[in-house]
């Protein structure tokens, strides 16, 4: 397909969301053969990443990847919900893994909001088109839920933060998804005193091929090498790669939350509906199965309704905050409920089946156990709900 032919049929970015959605879905269905994976599921992680980059390239070429992104980074403009619709439509068709695809939502906005404009204009299209892959270096071995305690150091070369043209980074990150595949990293570093907490953190945009960076993939519970440890040994980063202000890294990290809790969740929800559909395709036709799939369906509907309300509020007011901890609890609960339903209704599949179907369900089931851990544990979410939403005061 040529891009000129395709773009003639693209909707206006300001058209009603329902019209955009309909045109998008029709286009994806019409181009399904070109977009579908070239391998039999589940495929290796390498297969799935190659698939995602290939899909992004096709969509970029056809113009769809650019909807909802500002024009100054090569986008077509329009509301961010257009991106959400695209990610959800891909997840609903099993064209990409939303966990990988939606990383765009927690990376590109950071560059758009905090990088020098010319840098953002140069690199964001490369992320959208599948030419590059990026990762996010936040967590550290001793900084999990307590992110403000991170201590991967960035020091100005020559000692003067105001005039240094280079910063030197030393330390370690962990749980960095796709680090070994990535071309760049949005990295949080300690630039203030040891105990400066969230006031002494600075973000950098680091090229992963910089000398001194070593990536050691970690095998997850399902055997996949999706995340990694990343070691920084005297890694020199140009000062113009600083994102936001010096010591302003906490604001950079927090700015991601609205994207993570809106678009990423909606893509996850589309994926979970697809998983429940697969279960419903295979489940026995009895009342025990009916209760189990009914239960998962009810959980998913409540989650979808909540997420929809959150995104509408974000679109109207431009801001969402602590109340999205409720969305986070619901998405984690619904995900585990869905996979628990699979294990209950298809006995032996997850535990014993060495065929492709068993491989897929087993891998996803094991991954779903992390839903109450990543992105802020279920306990941290409940602490936030208690303190910020219920105003129960300090727990200390």
């Amino acid at each position: 397909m040529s891009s000129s032919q395709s773009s003639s049929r693209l909707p206006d970015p300001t058209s009603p969301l329902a019209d955009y959605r309909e045109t998008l879905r029709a286009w994806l269905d019409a181009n399904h053969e070109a977009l579908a994976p070239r391998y039999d599921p589940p495929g290796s992680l390498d297969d799935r990443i190659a698939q995602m980059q290939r899909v992004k390239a096709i969509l970029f070429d056809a113009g769809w990847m650019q909807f909802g992104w500002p024009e100054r980074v090569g986008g077509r403009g329009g509301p961010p919900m257009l991106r959400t619709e695209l990610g959800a439509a891909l997840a609903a068709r099993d064209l990409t893994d939303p966990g990988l695809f939606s990383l765009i939502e927690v990376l590109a906005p950071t560059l758009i909001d905090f990088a020098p404009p010319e840098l953002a204009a140069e690199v964001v299209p490369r992320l959208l088109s599948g030419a590059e892959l990026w990762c996010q270096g936040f967590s550290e071995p001793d900084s999990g839920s307590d992110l403000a305690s991170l201590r991967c150091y960035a020091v100005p070369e020559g000692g003067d933060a105001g005039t240094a043209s280079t910063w030197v980074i030393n330390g370690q990150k962990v749980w960095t998804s796709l680090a070994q595949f990535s071309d760049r990293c949005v990295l949080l570093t300690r630039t203030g005193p040891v105990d400066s907490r969230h006031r002494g953190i600075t973000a950098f945009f680091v090229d992963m091929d910089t000398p001194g960076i070593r990536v050691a993939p970690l095998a997850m519970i399902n055997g996949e090498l999706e995340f990694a440890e990343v070691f920084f040994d005297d890694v020199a980063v140009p000062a113009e790669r600083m994102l936001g202000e010096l010591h302003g890294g906490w604001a950079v990290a927090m700015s991601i939350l609205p994207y993570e809790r809106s678009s990423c969740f909606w893509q996850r929800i589309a994926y979970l509906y697809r998983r429940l559909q697969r279960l419903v395709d295979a489940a026995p036709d009895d009342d025990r199965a009916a209760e189990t799939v009914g239960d998962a369906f009810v959980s998913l509907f409540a989650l979808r309704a909540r997420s929809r309300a959150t995104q509408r509020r974000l679109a109207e007011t431009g801001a969402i905050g602590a109340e999205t901890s409720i969305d986070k609890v619901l998405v984690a609960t619904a995900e585990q409920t869905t996979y628990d339903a699979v294990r209950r209704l298809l006995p032996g599949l997850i535990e014993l089946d060495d065929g492709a179907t068993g491989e897929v369900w087993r891998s996803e089931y094991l991954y779903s156990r992390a839903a109450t851990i990543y992105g802020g544990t279920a306990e941290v979410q409940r602490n936030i709900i208690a303190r910020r939403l219920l105003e129960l005061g300090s727990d200390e």
Partner: protein
Amino acid sequence: MIDADERAAMEATVRRAIADALEVAGEAADIDAALAELDWLGMLEDEPDAAIDIVFSALGATNATATALDDVMASALGREPRADLAVLLPRFAAWDPPGRIDADELAAQGLATGRADGAGEMLVVFGSESEPWSVVVPATAAEVTAVRGVDPDAGLRVVRVRGRAVGATRLEPAAWQSAVARGRRAVAHEIAGASRTMLELARTHALTRVQFGGPIARFQAVRHRLAEALVAVEALEAALAAARDEPNPDTAALAKAIAGRTAHTVARHCQQVLAGIGFTTEHSFQRFLKRTLALEGIFGSADAIVLEVGRRLLATRHVPTLIEL
């Protein structure tokens, strides 16, 4: 459609009117009269979705008892609602039409609000879910028994109707399901209101009850129970908002099922936080708990709806997403 400001104003007016009535007369308050003064029937006619949402949330939040559900059902079934017309509701935990024709005679059994005591006529739907008929019978055809049950203040009645279905009209095939959907949304809103209040009562208790030298709200075990309750209430309110934006039998059924689950979750956590005092009739918590137990069975319990919904998923082998952004 009314906008957010108009809606907030309506909500405040309704809450104030109900609170005033309760303050003046306590449990004997005539909430129906207070609603009539607010032109509830006019609201129901002009803005049925907003009217149901606002009035039933307020009834639930204040533990007030009214017979407004009769009006919701009558208007949904195409009849002019009026104080003199009661409606026969399905049996507890069921949602099929309460009546059937047996040897040329109408035989019906179900629940009703307190309106059944004094109303001159009762609207009865009979037949099957997909081939419903309706008829208005004189009060003399209905045998009305007040139910004490778990919540004597809920004002529920068990009703048996026997008589001839004179002047019965055949309803549209979807009419009963649409009416049940309306009724489910009303009851789910009432449960949501009651759940909100249960949470607020437990929250207040956690902040004021001092043990081991400070309020129990500082204990993470207590905080997490209340957080869990808030998650449930907020999810229910979102489901109800979605069911209002996309009104159909499916979204209403899901909202009602979520309401039942929510009431159970909220009551369990809040009662544990309230501990001893929540186990007494001195504290108002028990009234809300009992009301949600009674309401759970109107138009189907959560378990029954979940089973029905699951059966349909398996029969069609299709999982609909139902709502979009």
